[in-house]
């Protein structure tokens, strides 16, 4: 089976000789269309570097990333990254609507159609009425929703989410998790979520890929066998949830203990 996104023998290192620092080494993964996959790993394992390599913003030192069968050498149309730092990712001189339109700049559509589509997606993330506000005039959670809308509007099929909810408060985070799951389904988005939060990783995903310490690779795959739609209360109490959470946490704790010893 070939997925929408595959990485084969991907390695990334900086420097040469004794100063060489390997971040990723021999990483393999395959994401199927329509899947929601979480990537978790110990702190500092190179998750963000991996996401940059998957998106084409960084070029792997060795190996190959393919998106829809094509080798990724620059960010392709159909793939978009939602960054953790939404306040720096949104352009402050543009309104929320113009930020979403900025995501559509490569699409060949009439300006009026673009505007209508942008307005539709802004409504889907619950920001109708804030189109003409600037990002800095709305709350953090709303800013991240603008960034998500911009990602989807770029005719995205694959969203790479780089700890998108790490900077929003806990209550907003739960709402945003459900919104993301809902949007993924509604706009047929395949999602790869990088997160520190093991519970979030399990709650959101069909599959959790656990990354090893640096130089990182996928060390374990855990299939999350929970019904959809997920529910913030019921899902988090389900035995399958607790079991998956236990497994991921134990793995990461083991790795951290190993790191501390070495």
């Amino acid at each position: 089976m070939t997925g929408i996104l595959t990485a084969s023998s991907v390695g990334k290192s900086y420097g040469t000789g004794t100063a060489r620092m390997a971040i990723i080494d021999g990483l393999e993964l395959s994401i199927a269309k329509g899947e929601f996959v979480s990537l978790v790993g110990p702190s500092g394992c190179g998750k963000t570097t991996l996401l940059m390599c998957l998106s084409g913003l960084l070029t792997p030192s060795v190996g190959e990333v393919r998106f829809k069968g094509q080798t990724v050498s620059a960010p392709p149309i159909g793939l978009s990254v939602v960054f953790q730092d939404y306040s720096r990712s949104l352009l402050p001189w543009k309104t929320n609507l113009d930020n979403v339109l900025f995501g559509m700049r490569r699409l060949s559509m009439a300006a009026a159609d673009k505007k209508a589509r942008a307005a539709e997606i802004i409504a889907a993330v619950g920001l109708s009425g804030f189109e003409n506000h600037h990002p800095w005039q709305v709350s953090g959670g709303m800013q991240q929703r603008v960034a998500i809308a911009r990602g989807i509007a770029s005719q995205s099929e694959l969203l790479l989410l780089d700890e998108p909810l790490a900077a929003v408060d806990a209550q907003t985070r739960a709402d945003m998790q459900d919104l993301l799951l809902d949007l993924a389904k509604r706009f047929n988005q395949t999602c790869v979520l990088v997160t520190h939060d093991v519970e979030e990783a399990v709650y959101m995903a069909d599959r959790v890929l656990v990354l090893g310490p640096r130089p990182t690779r996928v060390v374990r795959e855990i299939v999350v066998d929970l019904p959809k739609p997920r529910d913030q209360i019921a899902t988090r109490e389900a035995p399958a949830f607790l079991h998956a959470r236990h497994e991921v946490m134990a793995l990461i704790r083991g790795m951290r203990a190993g790191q501390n010893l070495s």
Partner: protein
Amino acid sequence: MTIARYAEKLRVPICIVLVMGSWQLIYVLGMVPAKYFPSIFAIAVAFWQMLTDGAVISAWATTFLRALIGLVGAALLGIALAIISDLSPVMARGIRYVSDVLQPIPPAAFVPMAVFMLGLGPKLYAFVIILVTVWPPYLNGVSGLASVGAVQLNTGRMFGLTNWGLLWRVKLPAAMPEVFAGIRYAATISLIAVIVSEMLAGRDGIGFMIFKKAFALRTAEVFGLMFLVGFNGVLLNGLVNLLRRGVTGWHIRMMERHE
């Protein structure tokens, strides 16, 4: 409470009254010989006479236009130098060395050579004013372009911007508030440079008029002209602010919000 509100509303007239009052007090107390320090009324009368004979109007227009053209030229050149510096590290170092050498040279030092090379025409003024005014927009441009964050650049790349696209659509808009801070500072420098150049080149403009009247010991008229120079500053800053509100109004509103 209400007094504070009136004071806030009337701050400009209050300042004017305070300045003029102190001036008049110094005059009345005779702290400086009256010959060199005329009363406010004497200055007003002298200024009014100059206005009615018309010479001062054309001198003012000449001077203001020179400062304005010099400022526009310096701002454009400064931004261009900043962009070149951003594109090429080698050029960046070269331009910085040149700016380190030229920056501390005062406008007055450029004028004699410039007169020999360029004559007394508009080229002289453009050369001198731009040469001393270009640095703040250039320096602020360099720092503004360099401080655009990695996340913003990655966002631009993700949506397919090339290096040129990133420059025009992400880096320059992000750097504009800082560039305008430099242009505001440059406006003051260009006014100083034009007055100094006119004094030394000695043909026309407010600077030359001040020089001439000072030699004739017409102190009331000199002071009147100095106020006019100050008014030029207010006018030029007003124009710059108008443009700044148009180009980087988002930033001004954002800063007001975060206060």
